[in-house]
């Protein structure tokens, strides 16, 4: 990781595409500058010798993992969940056609 991090407008657009964020040209320019600055700051981590270990990801492990028993405990009223949807009809959640 280089200490100098430059992010291009295309990088910003690529990342925005991955995250499904619509950005105006102004936002692209602003984020380009801000992200570069933040990433440069974050790049100070490079100077630390530290090994990567998957266990580092979470907090300290509790002594014994807990499981859920395989018991059916259904949600009492799926209708409440249908009612939250922006477009629910005929038993289905609806979205515009997926163009594939």
């Amino acid at each position, binding site marked *: 990781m280089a200490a100098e991090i430059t992010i291009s407008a295309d990088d910003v657009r690529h990342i925005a595409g991955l995250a499904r964020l619509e950005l105006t040209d102004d936002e692209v320019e602003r984020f380009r500058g801000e992200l570069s600055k*933040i990433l440069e700051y974050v790049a100070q981590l490079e100077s630390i010798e530290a090994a990567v270990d998957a266990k580092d990801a979470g907090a300290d492990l509790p002594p014994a993992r807990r499981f859920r028993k395989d018991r059916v405990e259904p949600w009492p009223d799926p209708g409440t969940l249908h009612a939250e949807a922006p477009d629910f009809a005929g038993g289905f959640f609806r979205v515009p056609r997926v163009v594939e």
Partner: protein
Amino acid sequence: MRREATALARAVRSGETTAAAAVEESLARIAEVMAGELHAFLSVREDAAREEATEVDRRVAAEPAAALPLAGVPVAVKDNIAVAGDRLDPPHGAATTCGSKLLEPYVSPFDATAIRRLRRAGAIVVAKTNLDEFAMGSSTENSAFGPTLNPHDRGRVAGGSSGGSAAAVATGCVPIALGSETGGSVRQPAAFCGVVGVKPTYGRVSRFGLVAFGSSFDQIGTLARTVEDAAQLLAVIAGVDSHDETSVPDPVEDWVAGLDAWDPRGLRIGWPVEYFGEGLDPRIRSACETARDRLTAAGADVVEVSLPHASYGIAVYYVVAIAEASSNLARYDGVRYGFRAPAPTHATLQDLYFRTRAAFGAEVKRRIMLGTYVLSAGYYEAFYGKGTAVRARIRADFDAAWERVDALLSPTTPTPAFRIGEKVEDPLEMYLNDVYTVSANLAGIPAISIPYGRVPARVGGGADRPALPIGIQIMGPALAEKRLFRIARFLEREGGKGGAADGSER
């Protein structure tokens, strides 16, 4: 509100007053504060709270011996904690918005575990409080519904992201409130608003129902005017939960009993040198020294300790927490709940995604972008991998410190509350405000901020400006909440002054 939560609950249990009266008092004060446009609240559960108060009074009458540690106590809850509502019944249909347009129309069909426990203890949720959108911010300026102003100086921020909860307690609308922390979001606004703020050990409180930001950091925390109330509230909501694998199974002790009797003889209190360097307001440093001297005078030993990786805390936080955030916010897509961009604008599914998610605010977009970047192909090891490795170093620093000391004393923030708009244009500057708080989140350890005096708004400032509260912080090893409450209570008793604002009665 006149009374502290513990005193009020006692009065309700003894029949001296009622939950209904307590809720009315709270609602009246909320109405007053709302008229003053501090903007601490996003919704008030007027009808629901009144009904629930009646129910609590019934429970008190029916089972006088029932363990209702918060009988009749009005609580304000940060609006990223799920409080069940019924969308078909408007008086009970308060949304859980997270301060975001994306969830403006969202009504949670379930209670967070912490809320269930509050209800069981006899508490009543009266209002949902303002916050930075999805708890992302240090000033509550990132709320999609406008910033919360500091009750001590309306030109200044309340802090964030639990700014609404801090202001609600500071203005006496409620004696206690819930906030949440990912990187200092309870302690920093508590310090800015002059109230007590607690960040418990990671896993102490179930995260079920807390809308996720940085999942390996997030914790619900408590805000109160007194250490005792903050401890009582935490005791009610803490404990293992079958809905959260990461909740810790360790028993919750009685954190309130014996609080006043304790004295610091033999306590080894650490003075982390890295927390007293450049950028710290000298008056806050001096408040810490006063606290240190009080502890020493009462028999504690003060030991200087070093946390060599402390200065990397913000950098680690802004890699790991933000990576998790970008993932946690992927679900807001307009398909199953919440906001969807109006129909004519999306001919295809991709349009739906992009237009809907365009409704995120600037800070949320910035963090999604940053988090997506650090997880994307080719950068994972350099950023996320490295970040988690340094996080382990920070944790190890604390573990080494606990070999020598029982707790650490430090400032909560480098400065008192800053001005509205002061840091909006410089995200990094805003992030650096969390430098003293974020380490506890990275290490998963408990920490408490208590008000410790007030200072004029500027160094050397005159009496023409209102005085701003400042906070000091105690951090301790994982699961050492009891010790922190005792130290905090000692300091509170021995002259911490932060206090209520805007005419709230103490």
